[in-house]
């Protein structure tokens, strides 16, 4: 990997430019070097003590091949892998695409749309655990709010949501999207606001409006950001524990677990920490490529609008 170049700083030569003799260009010597090292030291110590060591420990714990044989023979593990793939694939893509579309909606010049942004952002501000518990109670069979609404408005008896694998899984995804859609929408709103007005004016002269403007002007300009956000979101969602743990709790009968909750289940509920670690580590083959693509994108890309 060509990672020897100064990351991030190299991307903005124009702004970071000082005269030849500036502090930034000279080699550090004497007291300055010592200060620089002292300044980096806390972070380096943190990294060694709380990233390198636990990660090494995890690899050592999950290193025995027998663990993976045990995982493979466990039908719970296999169904969990399927769940995790679906959870992340559906959740990330639906959420990012909705966020992209909604960012356009929120930029419409109407006072009530601006006002709507406040309640829309609220889910992002509510602590995850409390929000997930609220979802859980809302969906708790006939006594929950949602079935109450269904019977009051349409006179139908709602399903017992957590008795059905598909429905319970769907609500896990929905709760996660509910929590994180505002955050990504705001990111895209900010990005769209930086697109200069004259780009749109020029497009309009060329006859690109509506859907065509979105497809040929807005989206290409945001494509790189969209990709980076999708990758970041994939990593976050892959590591999400709270939503599944508190919304469906794996119900019915552990059939909606994802890797993060299964690892917890093995490690802390059935007291098999090594197996839990191995279950989680089996996400690495997906995690590493995503992380590498993300790092490359963040390092080398001139993200310019």
């Amino acid at each position, binding site marked *: 990997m060509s990672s020897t170049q100064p990351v991030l700083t190299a991307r903005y030569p124009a702004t970071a430019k000082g005269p030849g003799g500036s502090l*930034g260009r000279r080699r550090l010597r004497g007291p300055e070097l010592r200060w620089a090292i002292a300044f980096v030291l806390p972070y380096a110590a943190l990294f060694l003590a709380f990233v390198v060591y636990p990660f090494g420990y995890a690899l050592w714990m999950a290193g025995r091949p027998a663990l993976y044989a045990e995982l493979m023979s466990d039908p719970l593990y296999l169904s969990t892998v399927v769940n995790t793939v679906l959870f992340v694939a559906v959740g990330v893509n639906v959420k990012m695409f909705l966020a992209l579309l909604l960012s356009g909606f929120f930029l419409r010049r109407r006072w009530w749309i601006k006002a709507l942004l406040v309640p829309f952002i609220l889910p992002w501000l509510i602590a995850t655990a*409390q929000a997930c*518990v609220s979802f859980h109670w809302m969906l708790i069979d006939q006594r929950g709010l949602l079935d109450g609404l269904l019977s009051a408005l349409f006179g139908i008896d709602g399903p017992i949501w957590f008795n059905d694998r598909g429905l319970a899984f769907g609500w896990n995804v929905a709760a996660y999207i509910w929590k994180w859609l505002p955050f990504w929408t705001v990111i895209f709103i900010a990005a769209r606001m930086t697109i200069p007005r004259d780009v749109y004016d020029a497009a309009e002269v060329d006859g690109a409006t509506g859907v065509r403007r979105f497809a040929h002007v807005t989206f290409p300009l945001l494509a790189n*950001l969209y990709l980076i956000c999708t990758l970041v979101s994939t990593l976050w969602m892959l590591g999400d524990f709270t939503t599944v743990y508190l919304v469906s709790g794996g119900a019915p009968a552990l059939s909606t677990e994802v890797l993060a909750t299964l690892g917890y289940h093995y490690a802390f509920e059935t007291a098999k920490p090594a197996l839990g670690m191995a279950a989680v580590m089996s996400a690495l083959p997906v995690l590493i490529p995503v992380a590498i693509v993300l790092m490359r994108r963040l390092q080398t890309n001139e993200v310019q609008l």
Partner: protein
Amino acid sequence: MSAAALPGRPARRRYRLRRTVVEAGSIGLGIALLIWSLLPVYNMFLVALDPEEGEIEFDGNIWPSDPSLDGFRDVVTQEARYLEDFWHQLGNSLYIGLFTMALTVLVGSLASFAVGRMRLSKASLLTNAALLTYAIPASLLIVPYYAIMHTYGLSDNLWAVIAAQVTFATPFAVLILQLYSNLVPFEFDDAARVDGASVPQIYLRIYLPLMTPALAVVAIYALLLAWNDYLYQAVLLSVRNMTVSMTQGQLFEDVDAPWNAMMAAGILYMLPPVALLFALRRYVVASLTIASVKG
């Protein structure tokens, strides 16, 4: 094009019709979004405003038939089960949140100052380390964390959670601060050096004041990360050091928990981040713009 430039009557009517459809569509979308965003929040209030303990909260009610503030009162006076120490729990949450915030800002700004402003050689190593940590989902490391915190003598200690949160918040801090610091001209540093300022003086008097907006965003990020955390607190802490977030874990342990009070506690718990975000909203908007353009 020429037809659009000189709209005739049918074209104008079609235009007006399209406008009406778009308006109606966006109003419909707005209402749907409002319901979608507020339904779970409404449900929190519905549960919290119920007068009785026990299962009565969940009765298919879609309206608080007999709203009362009993839940809130029980929280504030610490009379509800699991919330006998509510103020202590909130204190623990605040302790974790504020120290995570302060340490993230400190460690992150020191590191990114050394890397970005002093151009320490081999600096890429550090930013790569930050990127790598950013890419590891925190929850995947919970099992080894449980073990190593024991080794470090931090089992059942609030500092174990703080250490974990700072570890996972600092990479974002370093990345954002790096991006932002490149927008600040180096001439300031040079001028200060010519005047004989030492490195810590440049850091304190020039770097930190100029970086305030980015530091505010890092602070909010770190606080929200700690505030939103459930897993690390639930695993690394015991009942003795309970936090507000952990109380929600009673969900599957005890169905008969006083959920009106627990939800009331949840509603109170969401006030500090809202207040903080409101106070710092100017910085948030500014830095989100930077983050999205550059990142």
